[in-house]
């Protein structure tokens, strides 16, 4: 008989994103409610390809440290493990190591000696080239097959882990597991699967809880508890004034997913077509009918690289004549600045891009504005110049400077000066990064492409004592 036959497996999901901030009282409530594990995600591709291409965290160190301090302190007292997925935003090896170093510092400050397992799923491009040649990398829409050149050009490639490496680390005695890139759901489903909960409820509960409080009525107030049994799961907010309603829970299946019924995960598909959401208490929703269909094991790949560089300049305009003719102004300015760059730089301007964004008019979408739209009171114009080097983008912006700040709407008008807020006016923005992969790699299981390293702080403290 497994744990899940007797009582549900309880997972405390403190937040949708480690470092977003959490309240100690919520964590204590979850532990007092019988949590078997604390599990959270620490990453995402939402913020764009820059973090993966550079292997750098979006979240600042202090925010991660503060959340880890609370979680590690409470989990250590309660003797339950902590699982963190996709460390360092993109889950590169460097992101795992960065998070591990913060965890070690926190452990020392708290005077505790956890055994930390680090799971690495970053892939060396040559290994993937070899997989590709064996036909083991296949595209997901809208992409086509990947070439060796694209794989080799990525600065970092990560494979999304399933729950298996977390389960293996826990079985080997880990107190804290810090994972590289992992599906949000796998981190949360790992302990229920390990302790014998139903696979359908485990994965479905994890999908619902992946963004912490997002599945609650008041998403800004703390995380959730998921209680997973054989055939059902329950979801409860950590905040006593918050609720998980059937609608707030079921609506989360829609969030950020292109298909609300079927979700592909490493080793299978979660199907919630038949799921039934019922209110159990005013704060708790119970879900039945979730199904898991095992499939041959695949891991999704994410890869990114840096490309061109950008320099931006910004002006504000309140001149009523310009505001009454914004489309004409945009088109003239685009032409004047493009000509200026071509005549000034000659062959050096063989590749560049010049984009004008009129905020307050159509800057957000760049789409045509309907006829008869009244003029705004104020627009902000951002000029974005893209070129192969930062230096060239900067020089092109400088060449545009007098025209961008002083171009009259029509010839013969006295030279205007538009409002520019900074000096120097040109702002080197840095590199443009791009995602290159939307593919899966077929593996023999969930462990083949994953490496585990251990940091046992109790060993370290023994060694320190021996050296005294």
């Amino acid at each position, binding site marked *: 008989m497994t744990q899940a036959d007797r009582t549900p497996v309880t997972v405390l999901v403190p937040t949708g994103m480690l470092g977003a901030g959490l309240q100690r009282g919520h964590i204590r409530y979850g532990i007092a409610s019988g949590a078997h594990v604390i599990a959270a995600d620490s990453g995402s591709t939402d913020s764009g390809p820059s973090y993966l291409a550079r292997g750098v965290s979006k979240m600042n160190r202090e925010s991660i440290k503060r959340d880890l301090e609370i979680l590690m302190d409470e989990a250590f007292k309660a003797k339950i493990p902590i699982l963190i997925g996709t460390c360092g935003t993109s889950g590169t090896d460097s992101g795992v190591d960065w998070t591990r170093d913060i965890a070690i510092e926190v452990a020392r400050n708290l005077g505790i000696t956890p055994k930390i397992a680090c799971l690495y799923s970053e892939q060396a491009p040559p290994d993937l080239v070899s997989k590709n040649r064996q036909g083991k990398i296949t595209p997901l829409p809208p992409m086509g097959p990947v070439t060796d050149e694209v794989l080799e050009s990525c600065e970092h490639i990560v494979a999304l882990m399933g729950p298996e490496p977390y389960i293996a680390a826990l079985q080997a005695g880990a107190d804290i597991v810090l994972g590289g890139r992992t599906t949000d759901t796998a981190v949360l489903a790992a302990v229920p699967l390990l302790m014998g909960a139903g696979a359908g409820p485990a994965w479905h509960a994890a999908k619902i809880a992946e963004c912490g409080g997002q599945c609650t009525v008041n998403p800004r107030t703390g995380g959730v508890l998921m209680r997973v049994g054989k055939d059902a799961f329950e979801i409860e907010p950590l905040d006593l004034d918050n609720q998980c309603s059937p609608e707030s829970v079921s609506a989360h299946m829609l969030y950020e997913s292109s298909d609300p019924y079927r979700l592909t995960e490493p080793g299978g598909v979660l199907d919630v077509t038949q799921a039934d959401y019922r209110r159990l208490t005013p704060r708790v929703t119970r879900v039945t009918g979730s199904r898991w269909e095992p499939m041959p094991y695949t891991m999704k790949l994410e890869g990114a690289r840096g490309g061109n560089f950008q320099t931006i300049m910004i002006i504000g305009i309140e001149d009523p004549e310009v505001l009454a003719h914004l489309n004409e102004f945009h088109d003239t300015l685009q032409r004047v600045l493009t000509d200026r760059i071509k005549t000034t730089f000659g062959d050096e301007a063989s590749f560049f891009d010049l984009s004008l964004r009129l905020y307050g008019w159509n800057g957000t979408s760049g789409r045509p504005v309907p006829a008869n739209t009244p003029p705004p009171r104020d627009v902000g114009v951002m000029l974005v110049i893209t070129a192969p080097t930062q230096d060239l983008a900067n020089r092109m912006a400088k060449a545009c400077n007098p025209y961008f700040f002083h171009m009259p709407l029509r010839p013969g008008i006295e030279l205007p000066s538009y409002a520019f807020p900074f000096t120097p006016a040109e702002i080197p923005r840095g590199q443009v990064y*791009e995602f290159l992969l939307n593919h899966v790699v077929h593996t023999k299981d969930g462990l083949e492409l994953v490496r585990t390293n251990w940091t046992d702080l109790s060993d370290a403290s023994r060694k320190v004592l021996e050296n005294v």
Partner: protein
Amino acid sequence: MSKVGEVCRHIRSKNAGPFWVTIDLFFRNEELYRRYRDTLALGPEVIERLYGTDPDLVKRLPVDALRMVKISFPRAKPQGWMGERDMHAGQHYARLLDVEIG
């Protein structure tokens, strides 16, 4: 003639991974949901015109229990390309509001 923004109580858009956008349209009531769930006014051609996507890849998934329709489609360019204006696609829904839905 009603507009999308008038028959929905809530509309939102969001990136679904780096290559897809998903738009959720929550209708005001059961009657409006039933009337517009399958309307051609929200068909692949309209999504192509507004978002420059391949119409053959547009997915449309109604969720009866929530009286909502989800429309998912590939971004014309991957998230974060040099001309990016909306990294999360969080404002993409706005251009749907004035579409006449019949």
